[in-house]
């Protein structure tokens, strides 16, 4: 079996809007190994969700369109599949949970119906068997009193419970890859840790690979094996989690890790990277990060650097390092 489960090469997803072309994802390359967890971090608007949705080809079209790149999953380019083939991947081999648990479930069907529908779709079970499976998975994700809850409607559940239902649905067909797009951002702080722990436990239990998109570097440190840092639709640094925290190279990553409060240091003020998130409609020439970068020099203003491998599994996209080579 191949070690690499998913490999994205030079993915470009653009939105053709009235104001112009939004290059939401513009040349993203990433890799996820079997059984491993990849974290994706980056400011909001940096193209994390669009990258995730592109994998399952769920980009709303129009206005969006994947205009280039390859997404190899188990050796097969997902972008070359026809609609029927990609549907067999969705929910079965690759599942996704979303940032908005409150609105991500169909309000007019019971949660049981939603999960049973998924199971029946991919596993060819009859209704009764599918219901048994649904009960089982709901129990696993920690829904209390499942026999009763399975017939609840989404509005009868709290946000945390709804996210558990989403997780149950996503895992109901034992996917090889789970994409979790900021699964806790919309939830209460007290619930966040529970959901993260749940995802972590289930990942081990089902040997699922995970792409975890999050703002929370603490969660990244705890859960992920690799991290990709995104900025303005591109991956600016990709490394093993330890490397990223201890030996990050890209000035943006360094700024990010400074911006997390650390308990072991004395009252440290939350640092924010100075400057504005760039407007994707009107990116500065050269490296998109250069206006906010304290190291920027001539070349940064004219030429966008390539993502290059500095050492094994550590890639960075910055002229500071292309120069040194």
């Amino acid at each position, binding site marked *: 079996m191949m070690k690499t489960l998913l490999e994205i090469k030079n993915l470009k997803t653009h939105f053709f809007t009235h104001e112009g072309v939004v290059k939401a994802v513009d040349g993203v390359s990433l890799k996820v190994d079997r059984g491993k967890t990849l974290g994706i971090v980056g400011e909001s608007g940096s193209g994390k969700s669009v990258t995730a949705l592109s994998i399952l080809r*769920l980009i709303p079209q129009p206005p969006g369109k994947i205009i280039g790149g390859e997404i190899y999953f188990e050796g097969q380019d997902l972008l070359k599949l026809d609609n029927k083939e990609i549907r067999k991947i969705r*929910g079965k081999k690759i599942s996704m949970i*979303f940032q908005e648990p409150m609105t*991500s479930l169909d*309000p*007019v069907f*019971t949660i049981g119906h939603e999960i049973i*529908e998924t199971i029946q779709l991919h596993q060819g079970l009859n209704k009764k068997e599918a219901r048994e499976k649904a009960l089982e998975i709901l129990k696993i994700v920690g829904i209390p009193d499942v026999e009763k809850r399975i017939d609840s409607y989404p509005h009868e559940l709290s946000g945390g419970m709804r996210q558990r239902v989403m997780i149950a649905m996503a895992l109901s067909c034992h996917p090889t890859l789970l994409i979790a797009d900021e699964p806790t951002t919309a939830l209460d702080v007290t619930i966040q840790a529970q959901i993260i722990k749940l995802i972590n436990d289930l990942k081990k239990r089902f040997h699922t690979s995970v792409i975890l998109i999050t703002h929370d570097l603490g969660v990244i440190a705890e859960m992920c094996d690799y991290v990709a840092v995104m900025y303005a639709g591109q991956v600016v640094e990709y490394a093993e989690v330890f490397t990223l925290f201890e030996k990050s190279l890209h000035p943006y990553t360094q700024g990010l890790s400074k911006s997390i409060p650390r308990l072991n240091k004395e009252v440290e003020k939350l640092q924010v990277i100075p400057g504005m998130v760039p407007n994707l409609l009107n990116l500065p020439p050269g490296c998109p990060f250069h206006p906010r970068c304290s190291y920027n020099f001539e070349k940064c203003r004219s030429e966008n650097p390539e993502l290059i491998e500095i050492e094994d599994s550590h890639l960075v996209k910055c002229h500071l390092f292309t120069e040194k080579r």
Partner: protein
Amino acid sequence: MKWYIIKRLLMLIPVLLGVSILSFSLIHLAPGDPAITIAGEHASIQTINAIREKYGLDKPITTQYWIWLKQVLKGDLGRSIVSNESVTKEIADRFPNTFELTMFSMFFAIIIGCIAGIISASRQYSILDYSFMGLALFGVSMPVFWLGIMLMMIFGVFLKWLPISGRISMMISFQQITGFYLLDSLLTGNFEAFISSLRHLILPSIALATIPMATIARITRSSMLEVLRQDFIRTERAKGLSERMVIYKHAVRNAMIPVVTVIGLNFGLLLSGAILTETVFSWPGIGRYIVNAVNMRDYPAVQGCILFFAFMFVIVNLITDIVYVYIDPRIHYG
């Protein structure tokens, strides 16, 4: 739910009371005098006064209302001044015709309107979408009587495909059982009568259905587009469901919630549309009856019809609210 229905039915009482007071005042304020209508322009004062007295028209309006109300509470809508028949019976005789016309119209308005709206939304900005919505715009802006006359001219007069007036061909002998022509002709196995009454139904139904059909198509489209943008649609796609299932199962069910409201409201409009359609097509229903009654200042008949329309309107609204419960689990009536 049971209590809710009972509560709503009890609310009928003040509604009907209000409606009857309003319509009673309006028709008495309007110029014209039924006594003169009956007696004729050239009748003597004595004759006219005698008629006034006979129908209690000489009494003050509040007294007249009171007398009428007491009678209605006993279940009697009074007698028509013009025909001297019981108003209850006259309405009951005509109701099946109006019912067949409105139900037939609404059935097609809902089916065609919803399908057109769904197709339009799922292929937004396609030629099909533009054509449906163009037609719908045309439909909502069409005056019913004008459309009726156009239909009569085209399909009745020029093409001679369909009859343009009445409920059934006069050449056909027909035995009434329930008063519903389609039903009765089937019950008696009178195939010829069935075809004839169906053919008579077509043009008035088109005239009456056009506005609700267009309105339903437009609201279905916009409601579908709204739903298709929502997060849970993305979840359904992420599950691996086919686009057909996403649209026809998940999106449609959600999109129907506002559509049901509009359908309910359109039933109300249909009642007023029926007045015009029935007049244009000489359809022997309550709509045409009320027009004649107003023209003749036949107070008891007008009152009876309005009360009946108000009653129907409230019932339709109640049914609409009950339908909600079945499509939207978030709605509960205590």
